[in-house]
């Protein structure tokens, strides 16, 4: 099943529950479930293609490996 990537809304979880529910296993699960339901049943509109990066600016590999 191909799914649109789910937006990271973890910080919203804290905000939704007054800053306390982020520690709660069941609240986290319930939030994840609602988020998934929303993503599956109401797929987000297609996003515009990101701007094509300048090949000179494209970085895909690590450079630094010491210390």
């Amino acid at each position, binding site marked *: 099943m191909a799914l649109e990537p789910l937006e990271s809304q973890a910080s919203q979880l804290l905000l939704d529950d007054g800053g306390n529910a982020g*520690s*709660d296993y*069941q609240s986290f*699960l319930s939030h994840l*479930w609602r988020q998934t339901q929303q993503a599956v*049943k109401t797929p987000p509109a297609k996003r515009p293609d990101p701007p094509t990066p300048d090949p000179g600016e494209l*970085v895909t590999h690590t450079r630094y490996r*010491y*210390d």
Partner: protein
Amino acid sequence: MDRLRPDSSVAPDGIATEGSHHIVLPIPVLRSMMAVFVTNPSAAITSDLGISRLGNGRTEWLVRPSSTTRYAVSRSLPSHRRLLWSYRSERETTRFPPSSNAFPAGVAAALVLAETASGLSLHGYMQSARAQWQPVSAVRLIGAGFHTSATKWPSVIAQALGLDATTSRWSRTAGALGGNDILERIRYVKGVIVGAGRTGSLLASAVARLGLPLDLVDSDVIELHNLGEMEAVGESDIGRFKAEALACTLTRLTPSEIVAVNRPILDPDAIARIKACDLMACCVDNDAARLAAGILATLYHKPLCDIGSGIFLAGRNQRQDFPGGERTMGTDIRLLLPADGCLLCHGGLADFDGALARLANARAPEDDPDGWRQQRSGSLRSLNQMATGLALQMIQDLVAARLAESTWVRIEITPSGRAAVSYPQVSREPSCPLCALSGLGDEGLAWLPGLAASNVHL
């Protein structure tokens, strides 16, 4: 590799008998299964299971991403254990666990998503020796928040730690993090830092001051040239193991419980420590050890924070990959979450071929005290402090569930002294060979050619 032999809590066919059993579930895997149940609540789905035997009857059952199955089958990997998923809506009267006569072949565990009036819950079960379902000790969600079914964070942990954020040494930290519960979750995370040198010692000091239990893995000893940049060591420590000297000092200065493992990363003692941790950090200075850390993190579903830094001055070293400019200086920091891309997906290694060759051949590192001059121009504590400061912030945000996906950050200081922060492009391959090992556990370790037997000094 005695530690990797089956213990008495798990029969050879993978059926649980006794002891403590945890189901270890990366959040991306849970999300993908939830998506299936949203469209088909009666779906019967299974996942492959890896196993991590921790000794003393403790066993972790690692739920593998579904994308790894085809690769595993094609490689004839030995794992045949499976986990059965099911969903119960609030209206259903069916009790869980599922009926014991409904065991598909090879199923050793079950996860039940149950919707109740108070929200969604997730229950884990193992098959007992008498073909009955028994609840597992805990279901642990790996990723943002470090949530687990086993603990009520605020009450149990606060009492156990004697924590009162209004009067404790962490009152400001708790306030800045967003509350006592987040601080308590951070303090409950057991960390392992591989590499206790210039960068590792800075990270260890910062982490230990938060009170996390911490293991330090490093087989190197302290030399005079380490004292200029390392944290928490002095002249009297020259000749001592880095991990041991650092652990002694930080134990005195902080409330953290710190264990020194004066062994290479692939030593059985070091692997046993890594298997038992919640979070790995890698602060090594060579890509062979970095690759080994990436493999272990992938096999055992460990979040991995990898830090590498480097400073190159024009005409002062023989590296050919930093053309032009009078100085190239920066650090790559990668926080990699299980089932959300691996070390190779997020930037790979600066010297992958060399790292692989060293692991495969178990070749010892060059014993050349001046060799570093050919690789780089030196080391600055200021750069390493930037790297470890940002790494710790990312770890805090991961535990606080603010950071929820694998993240790669690069800081570079331009020749004119300006800092630039970037988030490089991630290139993920569906056929990534390292991701294919995700959650294989002990069997993957034994299967990797040469790895378990390697005695390479890393």
